């Protein structure tokens, strides 16, 4: 009886696994309208998708490339590193290598270090918190209060930044989290206006002495607050870290299903944590400790899903369509849709049951 129950549970688990997998991909590359293959960032705003590339900002509406914005259109710089959509005002904030852009009502307004209080023109990430716009720059963290116009710079002089080079911003209702390259993760208390640093307890060593002792490494490439699980996740170049306010939960490729320890970005929504690695897109289901990694089979060009269950057992599944590339830079999630920024294009993944689509048809879409 027990044996049957276990078998039934496994079957249900497998069915659930498969049903929530992303098996259908549509890719957008320089060959079909993108201004550049290297897509650095992506943000979903209902039917609109904003994608930052090395050569401009792309707006997709209903799955079609609607417009490409470049400096000639008013964008601060061609190299776009991050996008954040203000759900209240509809304005889009764009971090670039030439300052910060605000897209509003069809036009850009730009902020640079010479024309405003922005700390530096190399801006890697942008986040929105109430009336504040936060920008992660190479010279510290900048905060603009859009109502008063006041700029505040947080750097090694007035915040616990070992390095001023900040990479990413994520906002919760009470905190602002910042990824600092070589400086760990910072937490800003909005009400109290103070910082709290989180660093690798092993210091500079690229080893982990105790698995869940603290942040896995100080080279943090991005942070992601999950409002559902109330956890913050940090991607590093040496593994993935999650913090629930009490305990750390760390993952390495050697002891989990994450595709690689070199993680460019993390995104956590619902029970899932997405890790954008240099060897594929990995998804952790934090509830049951199962993993999926989406990548491109270099030989066949088809997609692969590598599944790792809670016991470490690995299975593989092949899909007819695949991500544009296995080098993943960023991701955004809206319900069952995911949009993935890769080194060779933008990918739209959906949960599809049409597994019998013709190979030729799929080839033509890639």
């Amino acid at each position, binding site marked *: 009886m027990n044996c049957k129950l276990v078998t039934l549970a496994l079957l249900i688990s497998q069915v659930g696994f498969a049903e929530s997998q992303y098996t259908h991909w549509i890719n957008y590359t320089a060959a079909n309208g993108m201004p550049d293959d290297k897509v650095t960032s992506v943000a979903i705003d209902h039917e609109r998708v904003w994608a930052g590339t090395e050569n401009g900002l792309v707006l997709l509406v209903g799955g079609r490339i609607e417009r490409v914005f470049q400096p000639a259109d008013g964008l601060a710089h061609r190299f776009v590193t991050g996008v954040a959509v203000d759900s*209240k*005002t*509809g*304005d889009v904030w764009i971090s670039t290598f030439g300052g910060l852009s*605000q897209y*509003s*009502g*069809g*036009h850009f*307004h730009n902020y640079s*270090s*010479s*024309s*405003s*209080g922005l*700390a*530096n023109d190399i801006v890697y990430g942008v986040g929105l918190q109430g*009336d504040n716009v936060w920008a992660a720059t190479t*010279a*510290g963290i900048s905060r603009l209060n*859009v*109502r*008063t*116009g*006041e*700029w*505040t*710079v947080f*750097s090694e*002089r*007035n915040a616990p930044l070992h390095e001023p080079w900040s990479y990413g911003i994520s906002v919760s209702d009470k905190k602002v989290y910042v990824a600092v390259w070589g400086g760990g993760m910072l937490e800003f208390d909005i009400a109290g206006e103070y910082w709290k640093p989180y660093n690798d307890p092993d210091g500079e060593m690229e080893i982990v002495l105790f698995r869940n002792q603290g942040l896995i490494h100080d080279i943090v490439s991005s942070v992601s607050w999950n409002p559902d699980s109330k956890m913050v996740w940090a991607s590093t170049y040496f593994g993935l870290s999650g913090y629930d306010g009490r305990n750390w939960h760390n993952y390495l490729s050697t002891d989990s299903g994450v595709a690689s320890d070199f993680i460019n970005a993390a995104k956590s929504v619902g029970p899932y944590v997405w890790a954008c690695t240099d060897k594929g897109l990995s998804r952790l289901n934090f509830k049951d400790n199962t993993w999926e990694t989406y990548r491109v089979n270099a030989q066949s060009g088809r997609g692969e899903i590598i599944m790792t269950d809670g016991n470490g057992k690995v299975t593989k599944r092949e899909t007819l369509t695949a991500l544009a590339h296995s080098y993943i830079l960023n991701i955004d999630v809206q319900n069952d849709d995911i949009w993935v920024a890769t080194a060779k294009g933008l990918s739209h993944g959906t949960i599809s049951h049409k597994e019998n689509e013709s190979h030729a048809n799929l080839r033509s879409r890639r």
Partner: protein
Amino acid sequence: MRSLAALVALASVLSAAESYLSPTEIKLSPNGRTLYVVCEDSDALLSIDTPSCKVTNRVTVGHRPKDVALSPDGRHLYVSNEWSDTVTELDAQSFAVRRTLKTGWGPIGLTTDKTGATLYVANSIGDDVSLIDLAKGCEIKRLKSWRSPNAVRLSRDGSRVFVSNLLPHLAPYDQSPVSELNLIDTTKQIVSERVFLPDAMELRHVAEAPANAGGFLLVALMRPKNLNPLIQVQQGWFLTHGLGLIQPGRTSSTAKQVLIDDIDQYYAGADGIAFAPDGRYALITSSEANVVTIIDTAKLRRHVNAFDPADLPNRLDSARSFVVRRIQTGINPTAVATSPDGANAYIANHLDDSITVIDMTRLSVRVTIDLGGPKEITTLRAGERLFHDASFAVQGQLACFTCHPANHLDGVAWNLETPQLGRDRVANRTLRGIAETAPYKWNGHNPDLETQCGPRSARFIFHSEGFNSEQLKQLTAFIRSIPLPPNRHLSPDGELTASQERGKGLFFGRNCASCHDPKTHYTARTSADVGTAAQYDTSGMFDIPQLERVYEKPPYLHNGEALSLEQIWTVYSPGGKHGQTADLTKEQLNDLVEFLKTL
């Protein structure tokens, strides 16, 4: 106790009686039987019974009220109070104050949406639009407008709110101005479009034609040729006044511009706009010419469609094609409203406390309603009238107010006439709080306002005989009386934030006060060379500007090349001539800027 209350009431009446009313905005009740009049200088709202033309009610609102909006059912009124940063909500029948709503900085234009659920308020100093949830009585969001948002209008179908911006974009000083009209989607409550109007500025009232008359928008504007030498004023076609015609589309709008001036007579200060209910006529007030122009809208559309949109804005022969009549109004007509039955149009005469009623059948003045302000014209009032009077300029092209809207600045640089033509292009400067900041002009050559506004202005700006000595006395007295607005960056108790305090330390520690002396309004009242002389400047010495309310004064430096306070030091301080700031960190520079904003 009762006698004390009576004394207070009497004092209030006496105080009110001593103030000019200065009606600046009007709105009609849905049935057209009541006209609501916003009286800027007496902090009051009046109601007028339109059949009898009598003032029936008066209520005190906040400081410097600017506009009034009605709820869709006509039961409530909302008055924006520019200097209180509030909106007063009133019962339309009893005039009882229901509550006071907080807004952003400097609320001016406002409207409710079609359901009456949301109030849209243009914040002229905050450069944004507050959306206020009227059920909860609190602000729900602010939308970026751009620069000094001014008039606000709900579209006839309720799907959009239109917001005009008084000042143009901040841009390099050698470019002509570009202004914008914001379109707000009332369903999504976002700015859905920004309509750019090139070579135009000082966008004021907006009105929408009925659908049967084309459904287009008209917005009052000015078209300056500020890149040309000012001597062009004498030859005409320099400061022209007109309308923006915007045809809103589903996703994008088209914009054209047309002039309402005649070839040899200009109509400065295009301001109020209203359509007759059937759309046949549009009325535009020229606040500095004391005229309302009545336009045949069908002829206007035909004319606009007959010419190349690039050529149209500069044609001074346009008006004769569509202007039906020019009617003299009272002094400084600002707002205009038409009655629902189309019989009358009402015009607020800002500087003579009256309402002109136009008979829309005869297209003539039916009656002038005296609102009851003081009959004695003081020196200041006379000066204010002169300040708004374009008749002193050649062909009526401009008044002082034309380039100093809201007694402030217009935000662009002008190529003023100098002995060496084409040289010394300078940014316009504010007139607020300048009484004790002589000398005047960027070159500091005018020791007092009498010199600034006297024969030199007559010769170089107005190209006319100018003001006589009595008028000059009145005008300069008025200019000296122009107050500074409240400081929005300083806390009510005057306590500085940590950043402002650090900035204060830098300001005095770096000896900024040696030139920007706090004892004399943060100017040393002399000239200095801060290394900003440009190619066409004949001297590097420029008057040290006063710094009070400096955050309201971009662009900066003598030619307006610094578009932000930061740029003064990050871009335009060669060799540290504008203070020793090269070693400041970005945090320190931000602190310094935050302190400057408190002045």
